């Protein structure tokens, strides 16, 4: 099953590498990983999406904790949380499809961030599942290029 893990790490060079290398060395699945600064400049937050049975996930959490640079490891999966991913996508723009494309952008609550004569670049924000659906639907309209941020997540406030 899919797990969403939030990891607070020392904001030091090599921290990301240590985590990523641990996943590959132990053969754990790593679906996405994203990292950025937090309210404390010395600490970064990583959001990791992984998949595995409970026994594997328990090893993942323990191995993450074991790294000296990790300060806190939280499995958000079964806790109240908000999860978001950003999708940037450039589509072919043709006269015949123009109308449908704009309609779909509305359906997915996307935004147009750039438009040229033959292409349009949009952004969509949502859960990774929503991003998957968005991509699936737009495939029929000629995706030229796309980039996903990977999930970021946080506890819901009290």
């Amino acid at each position, binding site marked *: 099953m899919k797990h969403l893990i939030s990891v607070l*790490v*020392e904001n030091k*060079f*090599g921290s990301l*590498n*240590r985590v990523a*290398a*641990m996943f590959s*060395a132990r053969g754990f699945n790593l679906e996405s990983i994203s990292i950025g600064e937090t309210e404390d400049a010395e600490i970064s937050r990583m959001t990791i999406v992984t998949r595995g049975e409970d*026994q594997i996930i*328990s*090893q993942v959490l*323990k*191995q993450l*904790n*074991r*790294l*000296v*640079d*990790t*300060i806190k490891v939280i499995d958000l999966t079964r806790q109240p949380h908000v999860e978001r991913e950003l999708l940037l996508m450039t589509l072919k723009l043709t006269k015949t499809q123009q109308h449908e494309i704009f309609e779909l952008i509305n359906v997915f609550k996307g935004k147009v961030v750039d438009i040229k004569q033959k292409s349009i670049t949009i952004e969509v924000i949502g859960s990774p599942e929503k991003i998957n659906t968005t991509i699936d639907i737009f495939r029929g309209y000629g995706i030229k290029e796309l980039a996903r941020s990977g999930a970021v997540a946080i506890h819901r406030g009290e």
Partner: protein
Amino acid sequence: MHASGQTLNGSEIFIESLRRENVEYIFGYPGGSLLKVYETLFDVKDIQHILVRHEQGATHMAEGYARATGKPGVVLVTSGPGATNTVTGIANAYMDSSPMVVFTGQVPSSLIGNDAFQEADIVGITRPITKHNFLVKDVKELAATISKAFYLATTGRPGPVLVDMPKDILNASCIFEWPETVEIRGFKPTIKCHINQVEKAAQKIAASKRPLFYIGGGVISAEASEELQKLAIQLNIPVTMTLQGLGAFPGNHPLSMGMLGMHGTYWANQAVNRCDLLIAVGARFDDRVTGKVETFAPQAYKIHNDIDPTNVDKNVKVDLPVVGDAQNFLAGLLEVMPETIENRDPWLAEINAWREQCPLTYSNEEDMLRTEFVIEEVSKQTKGNAVVVTDVGQHQMWTSQFYTFINPRSIITSGGLGTMGYGLPAAIGAAFGIKDRPVVLFCGDGGFMMNIQELVTAVHHKIPIKIFLINNSFLGMVRQWQELFHKEKYSFTDLGDSNPDFVKVAEAFGCRALKADNPDTAKAAIVEALAWNDGPILVDFRVVKKDMVFPMVPAGGSISDMLLARLNPKTMV
């Protein structure tokens, strides 16, 4: 000794920090990026620098020293090739959880990343084989980084830590401040076991009819042998040990079952198979111990105490995990153990029947020499009191079977990584640390060649190690697998035509050397070697070529697959 508050350069800070950590020996080799450190070392008298002849040798020496004494071993090597030469030794210490701090020189900070002369990204290379590693970026951080490195190497589950020191940092100056305490917010190992878990374990132990201790190297590094002995004897519980756990419980005690696993004793493996309670302490359910995990200790309720939570439930699902230090666990058990315990006499009788059914034996004919005899004879002559170092191969497994280990820190061997070439430097390192017990090395003719250069180091420092070369003219352990599982295709394992005359080689290094090829000459050579303390001595034991180590549970097999002897006995010569 420099006081805090003085202005020192990076090299002086390095030396001063080692002083603060009470370092006795540095195993090292100089080079371009370390010239400043070696300039400083020239006048240092209170820390001894041991010049090795290959950086891999330095790492194994440091590990041998660490395992014999319990203190962290210290390595100092230059950048680039000096650093990469330490990789095997670091990986070895990581797999066997030995405390070690490796200092590497690095090219100047401004050149890092430029493919500079003798640059290697040793921090990147060693990330997966160190407990942690550091690149020092500012001379002001050097002392604090060194104190963190020693703290990490020795706290919780021990392991190797690497500190990479660019040349400009070693030349720059700052005010020396030695941190009195170490605080690493991401590193808080659980030392104290949870009392509820300990109590639950005690209940289970008291109520078990067929309990078994499965003891690993963690008991040795936690210095918990005394607690283990008290507990096992008081509760009448048999004890089996892993390769690294040997000596945690005296091998000459009736409750000792010797080693378990692939080349473990028949009775230890049968007991694992039959026990109703398995108490694993400081052991990690390695595949060489468990064989097929599904059939490992199938009837047992499993208690697992380990200081590293990642070891728990990794290979085998356990019923009662107890994370914490082994000494804390065993001492805790002694305190809370109920008064009444089950009678274990029937269980011990069952075990003794297995012991009689398939003892560890060998035949010893007059005209041939067997490794088993050599090791048993050394065991007798040293009364089990030696620090025994091995290399990797058949001789290593026979050592586990035929040397009777009585005390902890008596076996120093490469278990997790199985590094040939480990033995000779590790024995030298052990002998630097331990002066009041003989240090003996059992080494194969294959592995001896892998770090033979360190014989010079032993000769130069008059290190009185006894090098018992088990010369079977084969890469014996590989030959054994070829005979059993690979259609007897003895592919590139026969060293008979190419081995040198080891006696002459040793003599050329300035090492005394003897030869023995039958039980009588062997016995006499052992007497002579043990009496010789003016430097190292080597005995070239010309043992039979095609001997095999039994019992053997084939890799991934179950106890029922255990091989007890050759199917079709062949000549050994």
